[in-house]
């Protein structure tokens, strides 16, 4: 398993796309921090990029990579290696290399310009989002054999998590406007890793006072150590479940 993992990581790190991704992130973060008048504002601009770009690149790159290495997978399956370890090494390789790319591209500039609790929360969230969307990509790739369908599915999933889900929440909010929804909102935020990460970062940024009662509820829930632990646990669940399902699918799959 270690060997496969090593091959995958080396292969991905040499990949041009990942290099470009790293470089692009680095460029964006540095320019954002240098352009904005203060580092806190830079962090806020970077937030949007992290919440949109990181999941998109992670999910699409991973899906394409898995489809492209189908021959390599077939070759490995013919060897006396467990399917589980093949799949997990693929996941590990993708997650590790993309996380590394994110850390170099965005993490280091953040640490340089804004290395406090907010910055660190942001880096952690970015890393989690990377791994979560790799895991979701594995799920998408394991569902269908058709490459086009698989990539389409992963784009759709990205769209769902970054746009459609929020639209549904908004719709729900207006339908049930007359009910106290503050606690329900806390629950909803757990249903989408991007929302969970965003709320976590925003609370670090001391914006909750802006929002009156809801802000107070969010702060009460997420503001203490238990809340932070819970939300990172939630994010971990978001890694584990898609990966687990995809693993089940892959181990029974007819290649």
């Amino acid at each position, binding site marked *: 398993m270690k060997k496969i993992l090593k091959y995958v990581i080396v292969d991905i790190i040499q990949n041009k796309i990942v290099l470009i991704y790293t470089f692009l992130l680095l460029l964006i973060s540095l320019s954002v921090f240098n352009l904005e008048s203060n580092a806190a504002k830079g962090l806020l601009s970077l*937030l949007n990029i992290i919440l949109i770009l990181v999941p998109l690149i992670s999910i699409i790159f991973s899906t394409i990579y898995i489809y492209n290495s189908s021959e390599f997978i077939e070759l490995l399956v013919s060897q006396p290696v467990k399917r589980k370890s093949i799949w997990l090494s693929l996941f590990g390789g993708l997650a590790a290399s993309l996380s590394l790319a994110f850390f170099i591209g965005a993490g280091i500039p953040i640490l340089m310009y804004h290395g406090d609790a907010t910055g660190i929360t942001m880096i952690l969230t970015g890393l989690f989002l990377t791994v979560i969307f790799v895991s979701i990509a594995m799920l998408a790739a394991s569902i269908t054999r058709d490459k086009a369908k698989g990539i389409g599915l992963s784009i759709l999933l990205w769209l769902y998590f970054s746009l459609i889900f929020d639209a549904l929440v908004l719709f729900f909010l207006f339908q049930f406007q007359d009910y106290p929804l503050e606690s329900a909102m806390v629950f909803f935020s757990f249903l989408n890793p991007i929302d969970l990460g965003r709320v976590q970062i925003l609370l670090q940024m001391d914006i909750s006072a802006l929002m009156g009662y809801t802000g107070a509820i969010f702060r009460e829930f997420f503001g203490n150590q238990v809340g932070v632990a819970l939300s990172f646990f939630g994010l971990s669940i978001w890694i584990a479940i898609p990966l687990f399902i995809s693993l089940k699918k892959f181990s029974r799959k007819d290649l």
Partner: protein
Amino acid sequence: MKKVLYLILISYFAVFSADAKVIKVGKTRSVAFIQRAVDLSQNGDTILVDPGLYKEKNIIIQKSITLKGINYPVLDGENKYAIISIKAKNTTVEGFKLQHTGRSEIRDLGAIMIYDSYKVSALNNILEDTNFGIYVQNSKRCTIKDNSITAYGKDEVQSGNGIHCWRSDSLIIIGNKIKGHRDGLYFEFVKNSLIWRNVSTQNVRYGIHFMFSNRNTYVSNIFERNEAGVAVMYSSNIRMYNNHFLNNWGDAAYGILLKDITDSDISGNHFTKNTVGLHMEGCSRIKLYKNIFNNNGWAVKIQASCDKNDFSRNNFIGNTFDIGTNGSLVLNTFTGNYWDKYEGYDLFKDNIGDVPYHPVSMYSMIIDSNPAALMLFRSLIVSLLDKTEKILPGVTPENLRDNKPVMRPISL
């Protein structure tokens, strides 16, 4: 004519000073108690008090005298009494340290109480741990200057106000530093007064609070980190220039809350880092110009109950929301302001944007009607909705717009 006037003046002063004598008070002197000195004195006298600790219960002054402390003698209220009560004209209290006033549910106890007086001055005193600091009631032309007033109030009920003025006229309040009271400055039925260069911070409720106080002028004051910011109500002809409203951050904190204020002038003020910079309710005919709104949650929240207010040449920089409102009725005007979120263009290069700017974002309307939508703050869907709404206003009030937004920040 002028010479005659001078002559009269000089002779007046000559007579005045010939009459006046100086009484010295101190532990080692013949007069050991301030109250005794006050009783001995006549109009125009000066009482000089040596440094030391004086526990005299309530000193009552009903004469035109000057009470002066040398090196801040300490007057202690033993947590039971008011310290100095003045009911006179032309009286001055200067250079004392007043501490530990009493607290009472029935009577307002303060360090310097001024009742029914005329031309009384409280200058350069240090007040520590007072219930009310300086209390002015039913007086005219009093001066309160350069006092430092500190209390350690825990809640609204237990503590009093720093400078409390009731039913007075033509007061001058300059250069005081007030901290930790219920309201830093409190005015009720106070007219024609000047409030200048005061610093009111970390009070339990409001930095300044006035009601029914018309024709007052507030210049260059600083209101910072008060629990609920600043609230002013039911007054007209208010002038506010170059004040700073800073760091009032919390659920119900406002840089300044204006309720039923009319015919007023607000200019050159800085609103920085407040949850709501300026909140207006039922206000009419206020001119707001050359103010700077910087890094607030909401720069301005203007309720639909306001009319004929005019915002011009203000700078809106780095606010999460520029304007918030609660209805579609707009009876106020916005002209020639600088908005950092403005995305229009300027073909004529005359520094005036060619397309109007709509300062109310859709999301701020959503939050106003549905606070739980906080969860979507800064999400992609919200920015998309905001962008579409900017192009085709549907939910936000179409008339709330700046037709001549300027392209560059106005230098103020």
